[in-house]
């Protein structure tokens, strides 16, 4: 009996031990929920630890790539900038694909996951909201359609295939040796093979980052809260008079009609055939009601808060200018510094490519074949975002009696449905159905059925254009290549070795015949996009008489331009940077690259220079406390320079925020503006460029504007409000930085930071005290903790025919591996305003390391 009891006890104990140890082993082998397979992930020889191999200094060696047809040599500078020399263009792009994957695989995979709705597969349920939004938005559909219709024998298809072979050669190598970047080893989710569609999706991501905006939804909410009159007075279409503008294309302009609209990605597959021939709509939905619009806007805006911050366009991006003639010492000179979210690694990867018929150097985007910004043997170019409105929201008319249909052009039409399954790490896959109308994908059915028509749904042969630019030898070829460019709309600034300069704002400019496109439009047909601005009518200039052309996201044309481009809210920079660039270039002669570099590094705030004298005038003769007197003393004689050590800069920025709040805050509170639905788009702040401009205009030339007097309050003028705001700013700074204004410094308030693309804290750089602000040429966007700004500074000095001296630098380094010596090795140079030589387009740069790539293997 006793023995039987002991045996039973042993059996139970054994069973428990077996289950428990089995559970531990299974957990470590397969993971559970969001917990990765820790046994595999943390195995010292494999898993995440194996990423250490990618952190070793790169050495010369010979490697075999099955994707190559002929040997390729790759030499690296001390900062890891490769110069590829290949016997054919295809081989050059195979090598580029291999290099991108070698040094930026995590970045490439994360970006394609973002666009293809596969973030949750890697990150778990936290990525689901982003996946749903992106699959609705349709970058993947656009890319798939673009690839489906692309002739496989075309140069672009061949380039995409060659590039994919290079990436996949690296993936095969990683599968063999297990040396994956840490994020893959840790999660156990490894990248699949690269395809041309992935590259096209990445192109779409760039378009989304630069041009997808929710501003029409913000307009709808503002109009509902503040009323149409105040909304359009404070967020006007054209900049208010009194605010200086510097269009790079000053005209004269001619109306040249409307060009046919480019085929939308969804259009050919969305049937517009009537499902019923009802002449009039059935039972009306909430279409057109302000309440429904507000609910729909709030729903979409809420979804966008789940996206990575960079995916909704918020900040103006970039400076680029060129000069020729007497203005420069050589024949022409170009400077470019695109401003994008600053991350580690950077969005850019520097490279030089040389092959028969191709010699180009500059920065590439990992995942895309081709140099986006740089120079070849004869021309140099850089980009800034045009910022025109190309995101239109449509309120579709639907009916509960006609599920799956919408009313368009007099008849009920069926929506096309696309079904997706979203894999989720540690959870069940989630099905998603996307409805498509003729306008685009339906983003929400809350309140109203709202669809979006935006340029990301339009196939754009960007790679074909880039290959054309990479090989162009003069402005005519450059301009011809750009004719096909659609998205994102970009200002291409140009300078060549014959002393010519120019700029073209190439891209997609939708024309809406009726309605107010800055608001959600009725989807019944009358307010549809009817065409685009013809290429010959888009902003452009060639060899301007002033010998200077500059773009800094300002409105590129004057008020007499005969087409609608967008409003002051979000779509265009106020022009402070552009005005400053033109001011610094004006009247100069024989400028050298150092002079251009000084402009790129300028942190002078043009708005401060206009407003501070008015503020000091308002304070003159007033009774001020000792602290206020000392604070005012900081501003006297200040030149508007937003250096990190400047106390005046700290005071100015704080004052301007308080001034905006004192003027507009009471109106916002009275109108109950739902700021919580989209803080970036609805809150009163210096990031609201419309408010900045109207307040500047009133302060300078309309000091008695009625807006200074809040509803139900005694009359106020600009001077009254400025004094109130000044006192508030001094109090704020005294509380935060101490009572002695002499101890105040902009760098104690303002930092720059470079977060890791993985969002992992601890892998980024900063925050670090920094100068600059949103309106300085050396821009720092994002408020007091800036995370966007110059991501690449480049200067190309054409000294003669085929002879260029180029230098550039970007914050970060060529490798994405935090253990690599090339992770942040350019950061110090970038921070201190130094530049590094750009390897020549035709090769021949001093090199330390050489990879000999040979075809072969399998």
């Amino acid at each position, binding site marked *: 009996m006793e023995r039987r009891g002991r045996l039973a006890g042993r059996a139970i104990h054994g069973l428990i031990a077996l289950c428990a140890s089995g559970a*531990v082993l299974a957990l470590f082998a397969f993971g559970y929920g969001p917990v990765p397979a*820790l046994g595999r992930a943390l195995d*010292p*020889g494999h898993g995440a630890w194996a990423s250490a191999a990618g952190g070793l200094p790169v050495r010369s060696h010979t490697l075999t790539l099955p994707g190559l047809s002929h040997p390729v040599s790759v030499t690296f500078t001390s900062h890891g900038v490769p110069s590829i020399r290949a016997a054919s263009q295809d081989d050059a792009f195979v090598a580029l694909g291999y290099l991108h994957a070698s040094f930026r695989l995590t970045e490439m995979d994360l970006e394609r996951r973002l666009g293809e709705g596969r973030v949750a597969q890697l990150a778990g349920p936290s990525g689901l909201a982003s996946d749903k939004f992106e699959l609705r938005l349709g970058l993947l559909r656009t890319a798939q359609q673009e690839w489906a219709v692309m002739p496989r024998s075309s140069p672009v298809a061949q380039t995409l295939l060659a590039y994919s072979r290079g990436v996949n050669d690296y993936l095969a190598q990683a599968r063999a040796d297990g040396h994956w970047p840490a994020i893959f080893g*840790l999660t156990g989710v490894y990248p699949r093979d690269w395809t041309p569609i992935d590259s096209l999706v990445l192109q779409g991501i760039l378009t989304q980052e630069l041009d997808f905006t929710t501003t029409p939804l913000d307009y709808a909410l503002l109009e509902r809260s503040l009323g149409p009159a105040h909304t359009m007075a404070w967020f006007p279409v054209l900049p208010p008079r009194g605010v200086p503008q510097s269009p790079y294309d000053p005209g004269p302009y001619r109306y040249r009609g409307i060009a046919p609209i480019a085929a939308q990605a969804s259009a050919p597959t969305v049937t517009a055939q009537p499902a019923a021939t009802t002449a009039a709509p059935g039972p009306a939905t909430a279409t057109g009601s302000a309440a429904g619009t507000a609910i729909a806007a709030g729903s979409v805006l809420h979804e966008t808060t789940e996206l990575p911050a960079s995916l909704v366009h918020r900040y103006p991006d970039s400076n680029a200018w060129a000069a020729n003639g007497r203005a420069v010492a050589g024949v022409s000179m170009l400077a470019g510094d695109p401003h994008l979210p600053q991350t580690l690694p950077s969005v850019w990867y520097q490279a030089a490519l040389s092959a028969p018929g191709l010699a180009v150097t500059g920065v590439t985007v990992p995942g895309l074949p081709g140099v986006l910004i740089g120079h070849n043997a004869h021309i140099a170019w850089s980009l800034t975002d045009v910022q025109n409105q190309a995101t239109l929201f449509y309120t579709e008319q639907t009916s509960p009696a006609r599920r799956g249909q919408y009313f368009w052009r007099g008849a009920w039409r069926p929506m096309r449905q696309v079904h997706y399954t979203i894999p989720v790490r540690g959870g069940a896959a989630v099905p998603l159905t996307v409805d498509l109308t003729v306008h685009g994908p339906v983003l929400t059915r809350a309140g109203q059925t709202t669809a979006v028509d935006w340029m990301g749904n339009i196939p754009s042969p960007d790679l074909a254009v880039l290959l054309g630019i990479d090989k162009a030898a003069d402005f005519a070829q450059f301009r011809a290549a750009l004719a096909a460019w659609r998205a994102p709309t970009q200002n291409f600034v140009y300078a060549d070795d014959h002393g010519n300069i120019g700029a073209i704002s190439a891209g997609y400019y939708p024309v809406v015949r009726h309605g107010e496109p800055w608001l959600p439009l009725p989807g019944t047909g009358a307010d549809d996009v009817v065409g685009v601005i013809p290429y010959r009518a888009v902003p452009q200039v060639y060899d301007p008489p002033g010998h200077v052309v500059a773009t800094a996201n300002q409105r590129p044309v004057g008020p007499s331009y005969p087409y609608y481009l967008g409003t002051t809210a979000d779509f265009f920079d106020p022009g402070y940077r552009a005005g400053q660039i033109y001011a610094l270039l004006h009247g100069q002669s024989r400028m050298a690259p150092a002079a251009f570099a000084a402009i790129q590094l300028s942190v002078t705030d043009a708005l401060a220079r206009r407003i501070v004298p008015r503020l000091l005038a308002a304070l003159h003769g007033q009774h001020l406390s000792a602290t206020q007197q000392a604070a005012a003393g900081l501003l006297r004689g200040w030149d508007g320079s937003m250096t990190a050590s400047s106390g005046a800069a700290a005071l100015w920025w704080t004052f301007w925020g308080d001034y905006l709040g004192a003027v507009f805050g009471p109106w916002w509170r009275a109108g109950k503006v739902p700021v919580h639905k989209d803080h970036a788009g609805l809150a009163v702040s210096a990031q609201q460029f419309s408010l900045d401009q109207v307040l500047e205009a009133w302060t300078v030339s309309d000091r008695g504007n009625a807006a200074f007097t809040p509803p139900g309050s005694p009359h106020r003028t600009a001077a009254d409000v400025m004094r109130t705001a000044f006192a508030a700013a001094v109090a704020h700074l005294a509380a935060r930085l101490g009572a002695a204004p002499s101890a105040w410094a902009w760098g104690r308030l303002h930092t720059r930071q470079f977060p890791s693309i993985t969002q*992992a804290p601890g*892998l980024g750089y900063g925050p670090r005290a920094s100068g600059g602000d949103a309106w300085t040429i050396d821009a720092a966007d994002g408020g007091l903790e800036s995370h966007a700004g110059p991501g690449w500074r480049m200067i190309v000095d054409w000294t003669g025919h085929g002879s260029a001296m180029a230098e550039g630098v970007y914050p970060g380094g060529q490798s994405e591996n935090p253990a690599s010596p090339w992770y942040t090795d350019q950061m110090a140079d970038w921070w201190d305003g130094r530049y590094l030589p750009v390897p020549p387009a035709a090769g021949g740069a001093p090199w330390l390391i050489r990879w000999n790539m040979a075809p072969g293997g399998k």
Partner: protein
Amino acid sequence: MADPRRLGRRGSYRLGRMSAPPAPRTPWPAAHYPTWALRRRGPVFLWLLACLAGALIVAVGALAGWWFLPFLAGLGTGLAAHYGRLRLRTTLPAAVAVAVVGWGAALAWLALRDGLPEVTVARTIAALAGLPASAAVALAVTLVVAALQAAAGLWLGRALAPGHG
């Protein structure tokens, strides 16, 4: 005195003295004090040698991708404990040490032989895992995973050993 004639009948339990006589009181067993006296040196040396060999196997296995070897080491220790008549307080530290030293040695080997930047990688792993971006944290978690495997294996080994219990 109880009446023996009532034995087995109702109420007989009240008879008291008829119960079985109490067991004779035995003295408590003498306390056992572990000792490392010379007479035990031989087996201890052998056990240390076995642990080192186990750690070496675990390390080599880790480099080969056999991440589950700490579990097997614990399992083996648990089974061996039966034949060596070793207690948990001896075998548990031994199994954990084999696992931790094995994985630690593998990491050290990679860092020393190949010069791999394991410290920076450890920071990266910790940060990606959402932990404080410290190399010590990732290293500790890695070694804890090895130790847990060994402990689970040991438990199973002891439970499955013949005659256990």
